[in-house]
Each structure stands twice: as C-alpha cells, then as structure tokens.
C-alpha cells in the first residue's frame, strides 16, 4: 500500500515536471510562429521602428489584401496539384520498393540499398542543370509537370530508407503464416504489410508533404511564368533589387503555412489510428 502511494506521488511529480518542460518547449515553438503572424499585420516602417517583437498598432489586413490581389490563388492551386500527385506517386512506389528491401533476400539488395543512400547524399544544387536540360528536352519546362519528377525522386531515398526500417519491425511470423495459407508475395503485400505500415506512411506523407510544399530550388529553376509557379515563389513579387517588403512576405508565408497545419491535424489522427493497427497485430 505504502509503496503504491509513493509510486503514485512520484509519478504525479514526474508528470508535473514533464508538463512544465513541455510547456517551455511549447513556447519555444509557438512564439516564432506568433511573431510571424504578428509582423504580417504591420507596415514595414512600423515593424522596423517599433521592433519586430512588438504587437502591431492595428490589425488592419492591408498586407493580406495586397497579397490576394497579386493573384496568390493560382500559385496555391499549382502547389496543391503538385503536392497531391507527387505524394500519391511517391507513397505508392515507395511502399512497393520498401517491401522487398525489408522482407526479401535477393542478390542486388545491397546494391539497391547503396543506390538509395547515394540518392540521399547527392546535393540538390548539382542536379539543377541536368534536370533543367531534361525538362526542356521533354517539353515540360515551365509547367507543373516538370516539378513532379524531381519532387518524387528526391523524396524517394529518404522515404524508402524510413519505410524499409519501419517494415522490418513487422514480425516475420505474420507473413509466414499467411504464406502457408497460400498467399503469394503480392497478396501478402497488399493485405498484410500495407495495412500494418499505415503509421509509417502517414509519417512520410507529413514529412514529404511539408518539404514538397516548401520546395524552392527546383520550383525556381523549372518554372518561370505564372502558369506554373508554386507558392514558395509567391514571395518574389515583394522582393525587388534593393528592397523587400518584409511584412507582406510574412503574410504570404502565413497563408502558405495554414493549409499544412490543417493537413497535419488531419494526418496526425492517422498516426493514432496506426496505434490501433499496432494493437491488432500483437
């Protein structure tokens, strides 16, 4: 009894400490975001004169009106299309590739693995010129289709790497028992492995979704007109040769980030559902 009470107090105390630390980190992550939002409601002179970390004089949304008038919606639509298509392709082919890499033994496995690690190590700036050439030759330059290839490919290595190690943690017996029941590899994959990888896949969707959404270098290199530009390029309308309008840029960035927050809230729920999947398999 005594021991139980003691444990209880100890655990209460531990929780209290954990909550305090968690709240400190909460501030550290939320405050910069709040400052970004706050500055998006200021004028440039006001922001510089009063200081970046002060409340705006008024919350008049002039910057947002300015941004919307510049036609940010077309950037937005392009970003959404690129994101959805890229993610769909990425997740399906990554899932396929990770399956044999994590659960089969075959000769070239190590070579493919080395290729994936090499793919993670390549600095993207050296790929700009070759990929630019390729896009012009294929005739996709300056269209959103030029972006999908690189976006999928450059997120493959890290995704395969993560998903392979993820699938490797699924117990072998699950598959073996199915195989005895006469399932072949393809059936195994779709009916057993894929459902069990849900939480891994949603992690990938979140991470790659964010990096594709914010990707700048390829977008800047492979598109040039308004009919193809994506959101990260939208801030350029407010960056001149010598000056830039920082508060308006902040407004663009706030508008860029909102859909991602919404997506995260939806997907992180999937993470919890992944937890349920884990419960089933045990």
């Amino acid at each position, binding site marked *: 009894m005594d021991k139980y009470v003691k444990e209880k107090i100890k655990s209460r105390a531990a929780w209290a400490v954990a909550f305090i630390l968690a709240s400190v980190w909460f501030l550290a992550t939320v405050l910069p975001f709040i400052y970004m939002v706050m500055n998006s409601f200021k004028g440039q002179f006001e922001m510089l004169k009063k200081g970046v970390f002060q409340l705006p004089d008024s919350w008049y949304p002039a910057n947002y009106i300015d941004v919307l008038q510049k036609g940010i919606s077309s950037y937005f639509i392009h970003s959404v299309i690129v994101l959805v298509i890229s993610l769909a392709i990425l997740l399906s082919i990554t899932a396929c590739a990770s399956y044999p890499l994590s659960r089969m033994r075959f000769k070239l496995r190590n070579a493919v693995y080395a290729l994936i690690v090499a793919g993670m190590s390549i600095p993207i700036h050296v790929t700009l010129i070759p990929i630019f050439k390729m896009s012009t030759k294929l005739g996709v330059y300056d269209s959103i289709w030029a972006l999908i290839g690189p976006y999928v490919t450059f997120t*493959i290595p890290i995704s395969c790497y993560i998903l392979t190690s993820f699938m490797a*943690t699924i117990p072998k017996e699950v598959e073996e028992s199915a195989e005895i029941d006469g399932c072949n590899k393809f059936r195994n994959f779709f009916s057993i492995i894929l459902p069990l990888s849900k*939480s891994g896949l949603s992690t990938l969707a979140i991470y790659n979704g964010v990096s594709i959404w914010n990707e700048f270098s390829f977008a800047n290199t492979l598109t040039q007109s308004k009919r193809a530009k994506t959101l990260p390029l939208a801030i350029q309308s407010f960056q001149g040769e010598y000056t830039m309008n920082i508060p308006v840029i902040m407004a663009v960035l706030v508008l860029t980030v909102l859909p991602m927050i919404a997506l995260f809230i939806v997907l992180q729920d999937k993470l919890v559902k992944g937890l349920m999947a884990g*419960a089933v398999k045990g």
Partner: protein
Amino acid sequence: MDNVSLLNSRQKSTRIAATVFLSPVILLMLIYIIYPIFSTFEISLNEWNGISANKVFVGLENWKTLVKDEVFWKAFLNNIILMVCSILLQMPLAVALATFLDAGGKKVNIYKVAWFLPLLMSSVAIGFLFSYALATTGGIVTTISQAFGGGKVDLLGRAPQALYAVIFVVAWQYTPFYMIYFLAGYSNISIDIYEATIIDGATRGQYFRHVALPLLRPVIYTACILSLIGSLKYFDLIYVMTGGGPGTATDLMATYMYKMSFKTFRMGYGSTVAAGMFVLVTGIALVIQRLLKVRDSVDG
C-alpha cells in the same frame, strides 16, 4: 530433389516480386539521380565557367586542388560539427517529446500540433525572425546575459559561435520531424506489450527504459543516419543566416559548392566540390550504418 526445386521456385518468385516492386523506384532514380551524379563527376574533370561552350579537360587537376583546399576542409569540419551537434541535440529531445506525446495520448494533442510548427515555417521566415531574436542588441541571449550582469553577446557575427547559433536554430527546426518519426515508432509497439509490462508492476520509467527504448532502437538508428546525411549536405539556414560568414568561417560544403558553381563562374571546380562532398557523405553514411548494424541486428 523436390526440396531443391521448391527452393528454386521460391527464389525465382522472390526475384520476380522484387523486380516488379523495385523497378519504378530504380527507374526514377536512374534518370534523376544517377545521371546528375555521373555528369557532376564528368564536369569535375574540366575547367569550365559553367556557361561557355568550351570546357577544357584538365583531368584530375581540380581534384588535386580540392585535396589541398583549406576552405573546403574547413567547411567539411563545420559539417562534421553540425552533424555531431544535430544528433546530440535533436535525437534525445525528439525521443523525449515523442515519449511525452505517446504517454499523454489525446489530451496533449495541442502540444503535438504546436511542436510541429517549426518544421512548417519556411527558411525565409526563420532566418528573418532569428536574425532579430539573436541580435547583439535586443536579442534574447543578450537580454538574458544582461539580466545576469553580463555584456552583449554577438552570436551571428563571430566565428565559431555563429555556427553554433545556427546549429541551435536547425535543431529547433528539425526536431519536430524526428519527433513525429519516433511517435510513429511508438505506435508500432503493441498496446498488449505495454499493458503486460504495466500489469507486471513496472513503472512508466521502467517501461520506457526496458521495453520501449530497445524496441525503438532501430527507428532511432535510422533517424541518426538520416540526421547524419542531412547535416553533411545541409545548406538552407547557413546560407540565409550567415551566408558562410564572417569571411568563410561558417561555410558548409554545400554553401561553398554553391558559391563556386553559381556565383564565381567556377562550375568545374564547383562540381569537384560537389562530387567530393558526395563521396564523403555516402562513405561516412555507409560506414556509420555498418557500425550501427554490428551493434544491433534487429534491422534485417
């Protein structure tokens, strides 16, 4: 005889399945990754300004320069520092955050969303806000230092503290990714295991040390490799926040390569830096991965 042919047909079906499953990924990587790697190595053997039609083939001349290039090796060292600090800062923090979220369940969802925010913010916004937050006059660190009777602290304008300052911001930005990743790792541990452990009378701390952590180990190793590679080819916030300065004190391999290739018309040498960087990163990643696997054979 029968056994052998059964084995053979099994191997054959494995081969077919592996080929089918892997081919789209391999095809894409050949086009978009292997071809650029090849062309980078090829350009590295030329003296070329990046735009002219005539490249001058110079053999391994650029490579000899690279081996003796102090700025490059300084940059490499900076990358190593970034790598070590990133792993040491981000991994424990991310495990702690994920553990908290896992233990707290739905109640602490608000924390999950908030803690994820840094990963969503663009480097432009981060660079801007932190250049004010870390400013010598009026910045956070200076304010704290002055509250304790210290002087002003110049974080971003001096080496080596500029590098460490950016390392902290990078950690701030990327920890959420590992947090989410570990959280997914937690979700893969079955609830039965947790319940069984608790029924056996273990405390949460014991569960974490003796059950969860060992089960998470492969995930943590993978995360370390990812962080390692990511740090060795890192570019963004250094370019935005210090531009490699003061002087070239905070240059990383990637920022150095970028300046060579696109700012100073030395594409040939820039490609050599890129190729050298590629060799180093891949090599280090494979060696470390091997070391980790020797210690831990969970990953098949």
